[in-house]
């Protein structure tokens, strides 16, 4: 046998959709497919967590779109149909949209005895949490784009909600007009997307989100229709369809400064703060508004060039999708979901961006239907993530090993490797895969030669990586669970067959097993001839 040669690849760079096949030869660590994988903050590509139902009950008791979901107090608030619901456990939901609640608060009996306030034709929800000076859980303001904003506040730390006091009412911004977006900024509630006043931002009085008519309240009209608001440091960024502004000095003499005149935002629900930046969906991709060293100056940058084709398709069909986004802080991760409610759940898509030292690296989700996703801290100070779907349930987001009981189909496809010379035929000998398992996992690896050319013999079935056990560490291992001999980052040797001028590897799993991370590959091949 001729001398074999080695080739080592570290998995980094994330999903790349905007490079051609030859370009990708120079970037072996990136992925040309990264479906239900995320870029790990430690490097490598990790199969994502799943999701599971929060409780067993549908929010309204029937199948309907979840329009908004956010952790609140020791439970979750979800908006669906014509109601706003709260639940601690997901098995019983209390409609907290009530009329004529006393200004001093209602006890549970009085509150539940009030007639429900129908939130007719609710749209996608924008939540704003005003912490307040002494509130137990803060005041939640709900803007739905069809009704007057509504605030809800719950007081009382006992675990039984029967012992709590409830405050809620509609907020009058201007007459009976609805608002679409709300944001707490510098002790004011700021709303936009107000009915018949789509270019105007309204801000409440200081420290009172419920009043838009007292001292300190006001409004500013811009030249463009507003699609989103985000408070960032001491400024409020106002995202319009074709421009971006920032509002400064809201407590003094408010002034609006243009940030960009030819870049707008496609969806206010895409705006998130991550890593000292605001990220939002622009017509040409995901952009950031980064504060610069110079006070008052900003820098706009596109961060999604690597996955531009995905975003172009998204931007071209933006009205077909329900956009929602969330930041998972412990993973430095921005997730954008774009759900087409007319298609099957398995076809629903999302984008995962992990902020790494060299910027965002991307992955994709498939099969997670998200009509709204929200995050927040529970009473224990732990950040929780929830999402809703068209099935009417609220789900614990990014947890577990399955998609609410279904297998997670995950695929990570490397670019084609030419091993330094596209003209030489190489016979693959074996590959050693560096993988970190979080449980007992059994992924496979598929090999395709010469870009899947049908004139080249292709392996019919994937190669089995065997069983990868989680690390067994003395002192941490659990009797009956931990498998003896499991390494931290084992190198799994897989014998390969076949030859070609180039090849790629696709790691596949379609099961309900634990997540795992592919860190890198070592390929042993035998070069032979140039014919």
């Amino acid at each position, binding site marked *: 046998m*001729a001398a074999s040669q080695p080739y080592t690849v570290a998995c980094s760079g994330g999903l790349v959709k905007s490079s051609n096949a030859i370009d990708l030869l120079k970037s072996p660590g990136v992925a040309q497919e990264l479906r239900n994988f995320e870029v790990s903050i430690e490097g490598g590509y990790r199969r994502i967590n799943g999701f599971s139902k929060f409780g067993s009950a549908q929010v309204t008791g029937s199948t309907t779109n979840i329009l908004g979901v956010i952790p609140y107090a020791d439970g979750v608030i979800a908006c669906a149909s014509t109601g706003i619901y709260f639940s601690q456990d997901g098995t019983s939901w209390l409609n907290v949209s009530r009329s004529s609640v006393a200004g001093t608060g209602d006890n549970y009996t009085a509150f539940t005895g009030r007639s429900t306030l129908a939130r007719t034709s609710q749209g996608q929800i924008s939540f704003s949490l005003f912490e307040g000076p002494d509130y137990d859980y803060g005041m939640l303001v709900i803007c739905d784009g069809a009704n007057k904003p509504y605030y809800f506040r719950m007081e009382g730390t006992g675990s039984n909600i029967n012992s709590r006091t409830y405050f809620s009412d509609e907020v009058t911004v201007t007459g009976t007009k609805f608002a679409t977006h709300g944001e707490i900024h510098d002790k004011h509630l700021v709303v936009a997307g107000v009915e018949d006043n789509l270019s105007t931002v309204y801000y409440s009085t200081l420290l009172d989100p419920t009043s838009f008519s007292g001292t300190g309240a006001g409004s500013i009209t811009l030249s463009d229709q507003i699609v989103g608001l985000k408070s960032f440091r001491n400024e409020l960024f106002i995202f319009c369809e074709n421009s971006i502004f920032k509002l400064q000095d809201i407590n003094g003499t408010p002034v609006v400064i243009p940030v960009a005149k030819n870049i707008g935002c496609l969806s206010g629900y895409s705006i998130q703060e991550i890593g000292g930046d605001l990220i939002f969906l622009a017509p040409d991709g995901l952009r950031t508004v980064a504060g610069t060293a110079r006070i008052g100056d900003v820098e706009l940058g596109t961060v999604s060039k690597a996955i531009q084709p995905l975003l172009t398709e998204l931007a071209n069909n933006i009205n077909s999708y329900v956009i929602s986004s969330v930041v998972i802080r412990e993973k430095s991760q921005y997730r954008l979901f774009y759900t087409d409610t007319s298609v099957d759940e398995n076809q629903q898509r999302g984008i995962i961006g992990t902020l790494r030292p060299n910027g965002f690296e991307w992955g994709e989700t498939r099969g997670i239907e998200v009509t709204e996703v929200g995050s927040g801290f529970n009473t224990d100070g732990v950040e929780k993530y929830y999402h809703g779907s068209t099935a009417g349930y609220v789900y614990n987001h990014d947890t577990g090993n399955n998609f609410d009981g279904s297998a997670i189909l995950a695929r990570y496809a490397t670019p084609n490797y030419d091993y330094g010379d596209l003209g030489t*035929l190489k*016979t693959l000998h074996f590959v050693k895969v560096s993988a970190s398992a979080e449980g007992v996992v059994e992924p496979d690896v598929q090999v395709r030669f010469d870009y899947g050319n049908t004139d*080249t*013999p292709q392996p019919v079935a994937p190669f089995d990586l065997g069983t990868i056990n989680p690390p067994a560490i003395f002192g941490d291992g659990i009797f009956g669970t931990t498998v003896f001999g499991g390494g931290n980052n084992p190198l799994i040797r897989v014998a390969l*067959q076949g030859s070609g001028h180039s090849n790629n590897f696709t790691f596949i799993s379609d099961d309900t097993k634990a997540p795992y991370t592919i860190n890198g590959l070592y390929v042993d091949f*035998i070069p032979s*001839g*140039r*014919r």
Partner: protein
Amino acid sequence: MATTYLDLTNEVLRELNEIPLTSANFASAVGLQQFVKDAINKSIFDIANEEPQLPFLTAGESGATDPFYGNVTVATVAGTRWYELKESSSSIADDYGSIDWDDFYLTTINVSGESAPFVSKGLKFLNLADWKRYYRDSENIDDADGQSYGEPSFVIKSPDARKFGLSPIPDKVYNIHFYAFDKPTKLTAHGDTVVFPEQYTNVITAKTRYYIWQFKESPQQAAFAMDDYKKAMRSMKSNLVNPTPRTMTDDRRYF
């Protein structure tokens, strides 16, 4: 169990760390897999060309017409010199692959109408040059005039290698027994079996590897494979063709 074309192909593919075929995709093999399939046929032909009288290439079991040696019998016709070696063949492409010219046998036994004493003797092979020089003219004159013919004593090979001739031209019906070997049949379907005993299929795979390594431009590996082939071929020939004791005899003819 006989070795199939698929078995052989996959044996080579596995040895080269290539992707094996299945019965389902065998017919649609592409690239290197198809090259291996082709190389197997080429190797079988190489082996048959190098040693066409391997026992498993025989045209039929010997001794079918007991007690005579040979596996082909041709009946002569009075006055006819030339006979097709394979009557059913219409071209040299379908003829036998090889004939044992040193073992032609002539007899009247089992010939209709013949009774003892029978004629029964071996025919000596006479090359065409000697036949033309010493016998052709007189036999042709006899054929054209007296037509007395005679009892054949020699067998001759036609220049096109498709017929054998008898000298003298037979004067009546005789049975001619001789030994023939078939050409190997090209393998096509995945279930086609090779005529080689399984023990000797390594000769085929070694030669196939030789072609594959040439294809992969690895002369060193090709040389190793060729060496394997030569050793395996030598062993096979030693076992199958020359296993019996030999004695030296002098059968020269004197004039």
